[in-house]
């Protein structure tokens, strides 16, 4: 197995809100190996995006990381100064966000924005910088990059804008890219193009990725390992195919059963009753307990995430040899 690139342990990120303080991320631990693609899955409010932001140190008040550590190649990132974080972001860890029209600056040309991203970390001559921009744009599948680089974001379609955002993330050849729902806003045909390209780019450049998404199918097609979050906590982790074929946590199984296609057309889907609890008012013990068919008195205490490098589950009654049809 490749050496560990990122080691997140006991990460807890708290937000102070008017209604009280809540832990958007609580006690999350996982590792990412060099060149590995890890899928981080959960529904809205599960804490998956906040986990990504916390790794990059992008948590602003009223939020803060209250405990835990994030180590990149052994170097602690939690507690770094703003300047140190700035020099790390983009060079060592880059991020691609969901909405490319919100992440690109509408009044700067693509070239200007890309050159700024290079200049933040490296002193490169004009010609060399431009050449690198064009090369990276070409690598993410933008045709006629030498001409298109002079265009503004509004002259690109949504899919092309996301490609530009990915190109910017790749510019400084980071070791890790955190992708936060990068294809959610795109049409399926464009999503398929970008998924294919991202996969081959990651393989070619040896870039590790954390792929955050609510869509199990998308994640399963890019990542080799999966982390499932619920109400701020990691509840299941393991090799992708194993987890999907034989989920141990009842929530993971419920999520799989919710997918149309898991039941014959026209038949009721296996639904999870109820909704995710508010993070301010979490139930006692396991947060999934009120919606869980297996819950009993024991579930009023928080189950620990089972240890181990392979499969991990946070449940008192993990599902054994049951397979999703």
């Amino acid at each position: 197995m490749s050496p560990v690139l990122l080691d997140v342990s006991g990460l807890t990120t708290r937000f102070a809100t008017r209604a009280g303080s809540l832990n958007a991320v609580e006690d999350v631990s996982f590792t990412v190996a060099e060149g590995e693609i890890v899928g981080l899955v959960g529904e809205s409010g599960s804490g998956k995006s906040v986990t990504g932001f916390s790794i990059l140190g992008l948590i602003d008040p009223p939020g803060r990381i209250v405990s835990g550590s994030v180590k990149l190649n052994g170097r602690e990132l939690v507690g770094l100064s703003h300047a140190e974080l700035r020099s790390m972001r983009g060079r060592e860890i880059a991020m691609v966000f969901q909405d490319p029209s919100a992440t690109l600056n509408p009044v700067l040309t693509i070239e200007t924005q890309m050159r700024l991203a290079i200049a933040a970390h490296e002193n490169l001559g004009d010609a060399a910088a431009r050449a690198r921009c064009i090369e990276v744009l070409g690598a993410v599948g933008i045709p006629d990059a030498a001409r298109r680089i002079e265009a503004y974001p509004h002259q690109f379609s949504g899919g092309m804008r996301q490609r530009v955002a990915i190109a910017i993330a790749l510019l400084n050849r980071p070791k890790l890219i955190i992708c936060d729902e990068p294809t959610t806003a795109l049409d399926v045909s464009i999503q398929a193009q970008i998924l294919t390209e991202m996969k081959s780019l990651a393989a070619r450049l040896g870039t590790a990725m954390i792929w955050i998404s609510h869509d199990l199918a998308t994640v399963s097609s890019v990542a080799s390992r999966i982390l499932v979050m619920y109400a701020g906590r990691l509840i299941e982790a393991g090799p992708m195919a194993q987890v999907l074929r034989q989920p141990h946590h009842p929530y993971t199984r419920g999520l799989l059963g919710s997918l149309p296609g898991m039941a014959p057309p026209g038949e009721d889907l296996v639904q999870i009753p109820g909704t995710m609890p508010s993070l301010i008012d979490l139930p006692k013990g396991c947060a999934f307990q009120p919606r869980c068919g297996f819950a009993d008195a024991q579930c009023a205490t928080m189950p620990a995430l089972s240890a181990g490098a392979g499969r991990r589950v946070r449940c008192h009654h993990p599902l054994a040899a049951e397979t999703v049809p």
Partner: protein
Amino acid sequence: MMATQPAKLVEVEAVSKRFTPQVSLGDRLAALLGSPVETRTVHAVDRVSFGIEAGEVLGLVGESGCGKSTLGRVIAGIHPPSEGRASIAGVTVMGDGRTPLKRTTRIQMVFQDPFASLDPRVRIGETISEGPLAHGLVTRADAQDYVTRWLTAVGLPAEAAGRFPHQFSGGQRQRVAIARALAMQPDVLVCDEPVASLDVSIQAQIINLFLKLRRELGLTMLFISHDLGVVRHLCDRVAIMYLGRIVEIGPAAQIFATPRHPYTRALLDSVPKLVTGRDELVTFKPIQGELPSPLSPPPGCHFHQRCPRAEARCRSEAPELAGRPDAVTGHAVACHFPLADEA
């Protein structure tokens, strides 16, 4: 229409919808003085015809900008068609833009975003009862019971009537929006991406609700969605739209098993599937290129620039939706070189 032919509940006949922005006074003067003025007409829907039987659920699928929402709105009587006619049980929903809007209760709509489609200042009970009261479907004295009945039907407690939209989650709001539409006792429900903004587990709950309502009320629905998985699960028949035209229509099972149009095939291949095999290699066969602009659709078949099977004829001659587009069991495709059945 021949008397022997079973009438469709919903008939859409050669409906086109174009949007032309208003020309400014300056441009009009310039045009009068003989200078060429560019008109940017969007051809949102282009001569679309199909029917929906009573009790049938038709899925309308396509990528963004293909005109599926516009078509839904024309059928629901929100936009007048530029050409053609949409009718319910033989009554035209809306003529051209000049005839006054015909208010109909026979068709209702459920929108994508339940945060935008419910009035934040109006209690849920009032939101649901307003329409039925205005149309005399219920008396004021019975309104409360009536609201309770529909809230129960969509799986919400009776107390919900006294609350405001912000007190509900997204999934519950979508239930309210469905209750509001159903309370009008429509013959046809047009749903525009009703589950697209919901989380997976909530989406499953709403899909199950649609299945239940269908069984209990025999709903006739036009279900607009970009999500092929949801459509396959809910719909009897499916129509695939590309850049304003229907390129393929037929029974859902057939469309998904043996698509005949290269675009349908490519769309199905683009959908990520759950990978559960140990060493399963995931390969997409993505469609090349991007959706052309509806401002200047390519000549001939709209798909020819991205189609692996395109030939000279496709570039000049638009294929008609041949076959029997109206027959319930019919599987029709608009392609000069359709895929064979074994595909």
